[in-house]
């Protein structure tokens, strides 16, 4: 399942997509949990009883601001979350 967390507002579309099929057999040791400086990710049990990564509820409305520090403007050339997730489950829409 592809889970898109985020929103679209007047300034753009801000979604973090998680391919949860890649989470169920995570080979990265759930590195997303520690890779994000804001600890935005958590492991949840989804509707199909799989343990998968998700963006915490409290961050889902503020991604544009919360992720700014990890974008090129913050001095990063690649996103820590996407880089840490070696199976390639995490993608940003912007």
């Amino acid at each position, binding site marked *: *399942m592809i889970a*898109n967390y985020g929103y*679209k507002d007047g300034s753009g579309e801000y979604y973090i997509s998680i391919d949860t099929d890649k989470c169920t057999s995570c080979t990265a040791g759930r590195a997303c949990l520690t890779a994000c400086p804001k600890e935005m990710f958590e492991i949840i049990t989804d509707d*199909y*009883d799989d343990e998968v990564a998700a963006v915490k509820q409290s961050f889902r409305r503020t991604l544009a601001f919360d992720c700014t520090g990890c974008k090129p403007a913050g001095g990063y050339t690649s996103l820590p979350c996407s880089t840490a997730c070696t199976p390639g489950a995490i993608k940003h829409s912007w």
Partner: protein
Amino acid sequence: MITAGIDMGSRTVKVVFLEELKVDGAPQLRWGVKGKHIMFPEDLDPDQAADKAFEDALKGAGISRDQITRVVSTGSGRKQVKFANADITEVGAGARGAVFMCPTAKTVVDVGAEEGRGVKANAEGKVVDFAGNEKCAAGAGAFAESMSRALQLSLKDFGEASLRSDKTIPMNAQCTVFAESEVVSLIHSATPKEDIAKAVLDAVASRVCAMVRRVGIEDDVILIGGMVHNPGFVQSLKGALGVDKVHLPDMPEYISALGAALIAADGDA
């Protein structure tokens, strides 16, 4: 076996009972909508609302709590249904119920009071891809309701008025609050109400469509949730999605509760 699905939405509680029957030796599912919409009165907390809706539904169906083998809750208030055996997200429940109602459906568009979302489902009714809007109410029923109040029209008249317009007036505001000020400006410039109604519903459809496009539009498309009752919105959504046909199930606001009841019957959740 009778199972129950209870959908605690932001504005209403919906209850569906599902009974498995043997018809000519073959199992067949029969579902009945026995729960009435309960608007949340200010003095009624969600916990009480769930109890009241469920009790009313049991009375309406003429069955007792003991006959219910399993209850699964869904909706934004699903965790507040204390008597539920399990809960499931509104995304999963909506997809399951929608595919049950329309087995050929691959794209489920769910527009309720609080939130709109696009879901891609497989033939078993499992979610393959979904996108919602966690921030903005402009792609949901509450927005249309608020704008109908600004136009001093009932929701029913609002939807029907929109069908009488062939004008396209873009609404630029993404936010409900700012959109209302755009509506007021249109009223002041003597724009006919039907044109404003269409502009509002086109805007809601456009926001919903953006979410559906994230998951991809694949035939067949089914629309569930309370906004199905708004013919103007259905028309606007068809235009925004660029599809000729959108399946509209009976009792669309109960489909997520039906999905929860089906999942209760499966024993999955």
